[in-house]
């Protein structure tokens, strides 16, 4: 088990290196001169030259990457082309908002989704099952930004129960969390239902039932733990997608997170900023996947031995 953890942590470093190289290469193939873009349309030639020198854009690409990598190790992600502030400061300032949103949305999706899926699996083909099935089809097809605006229209404008945008109190968190989490409620419900149906047909479930255990207890204690393994793997995959979705949700609700920062960076061609944001998202996804894999091997010890 310890060997497995050590191995997984050791693989982390080359993975992150590869990610940083890929992000760097892709973004530096940008057509057009980043220095000219950053300086603005009517900047003097000397100013552009100054920016180019200042940000090291006159160096060959491999040296730029070397310098960039060296700086990352020292916790320096470069300066934003626009605001001239350190990118890391901007990211650290915005990060809590995004993590808060993604975390609550994940919690919402897992708790509600798994509960719906288990209830549906207890009575396959019943009215509850069909309702969960239908709802999950709707949830998968709903465009996040439209859903968000509908919720805003209903709960903020018409009923005036919740604030329409911004961050601060728990009330501010409700609509963005539901908007971001709802499609994943549908996915978790679907997966929970189908894995539970598989587990419930196993022999040990019949045994547990035959020895007289209460059916509800069999489902929630015996079956759910065994159905949890595939669900945990999904956590890793969907955390990444949730971060992607956060980009859109943050725009709808004026949520001051990283996603909005990144989109603004793209529109303004602020490469250092975009690079920092993507690197942050990538690192977060890699780390969450690591935690999920370790959790997975705790739930199913055969993985670590394999």
């Amino acid at each position: 088990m310890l060997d497995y953890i050590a191995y997984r942590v050791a693989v982390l470093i080359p993975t992150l290196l590869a990610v940083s190289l890929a992000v760097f290469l892709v973004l530096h193939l940008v057509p057009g001169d980043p220095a000219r873009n950053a300086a603005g349309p009517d900047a003097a030639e000397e100013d552009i030259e100054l920016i180019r020198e200042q940000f090291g854009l006159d160096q060959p690409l491999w040296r730029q990457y070397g310098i960039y990598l060296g700086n990352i190790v020292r916790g320096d992600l470069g300066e934003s082309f626009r605001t001239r502030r350190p990118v890391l400061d901007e990211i650290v300032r915005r990060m809590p908002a995004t993590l808060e949103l993604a975390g609550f949305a994940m919690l919402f999706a897992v708790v509600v989704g798994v509960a719906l899926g288990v209830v549906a699996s207890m009575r396959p083909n019943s009215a509850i099952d069909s309702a969960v099935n239908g709802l999950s089809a709707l949830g998968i097809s709903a465009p996040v930004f439209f859903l968000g605006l509908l919720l805003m229209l209903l709960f903020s404008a018409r009923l005036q129960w919740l604030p329409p945008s911004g961050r601060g109190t728990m009330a501010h968190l409700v609509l963005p969390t539901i908007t971001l989490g709802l499609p994943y409620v549908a996915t978790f419900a679907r997966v929970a239902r189908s894995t539970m149906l598989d587990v419930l047909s196993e022999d040990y479930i019949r045994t547990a039932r035959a020895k007289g255990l209460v059916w509800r207890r069999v489902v929630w204690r015996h079956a759910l733990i065994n159905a949890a393994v595939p669900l945990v793997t999904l956590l890793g995959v969907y955390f990444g997608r949730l971060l992607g979705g956060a980009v859109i949700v943050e725009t709808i609700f004026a949520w001051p997170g990283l996603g909005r920062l990144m989109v603004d960076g793209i529109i303004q061609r602020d490469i250092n900023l975009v690079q920092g944001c993507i690197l942050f998202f990538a690192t977060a996804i890699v780390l969450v996947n690591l935690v999920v894999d370790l959790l997975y091997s705790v739930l199913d010890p055969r993985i670590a031995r394999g």
Partner: protein
Amino acid sequence: MIAFLRFLLLTGRWFALLGVGVIALFLLAAVCAPLFFSWEEATRVNLGDALAAPSAALPLGADEMGRSMVARLVWGARVSLLVAGLSVGVALIAGLVIGGLCGFYENRLTFVTMRAMDAIISFPRILVAIMLITILGPGIVSLTLAIAISSVPVFARLFRGPVLSLKKRDYVVAARSLGAGDGRLLFRHVMPNLTALIVVQGSISLAEAVLIASGLSFLGLGPQPPVPEWGAMIAQSRSHLMSTPHVVLAPGIALFVFVLALNLVGDGLRDFSDPRASGTGGR
């Protein structure tokens, strides 16, 4: 197609049938858009009609620039279908080639290729697409390309698996012993078995592509004004959501219904190609 419709009818899959009808309607709107409304009607600013309520002349009212909502919705269907259709088509072909080759030949190169595909898949598609649009600049062409490229790894991984097992089948080995070359084996004996998978995955991917395209357009990374794209229409009109909700509701409902129809038909196709995998079968 007729066999599929008959299957839906005989097994009572009314939602999937409804989906087929909705898609046909949207397809008609997209293909015949110029017959119903001129490009002018969908894009010319006419502030006199700004935010007009629905009337006989403007069945769904007008947006904040006074442009007919119906005309913009119909042209928007064309944009969405074009972006989603082209990107899924390109990605399918590229995914088939990469997945097919990587399944057929097992060597160091294909191993590295598949690991690279796995690495890309572990990132959310919308982030991959956003990164590509950063390079290509916002616009309809780069939107299509970004969605296509970000879905290639999904298809490559999906198609590689079956190729790995199909190439060991007796009839493929028999064809090889009869002297068939690699190309003939791959394209004549292995690939045709992927048809069902291609059709099912294609329709589901189309739904996903429409969603991602509209999401990126909503962020301002898709077609630029005045091109009518549903996601972009919602973004541009959203400040009028509270006063005149129809300017946001109309494109939103169009988008939602279209994606739902694609998903319903995708589910129907899955059941059609493999009735045992039926989602509603239960136990």
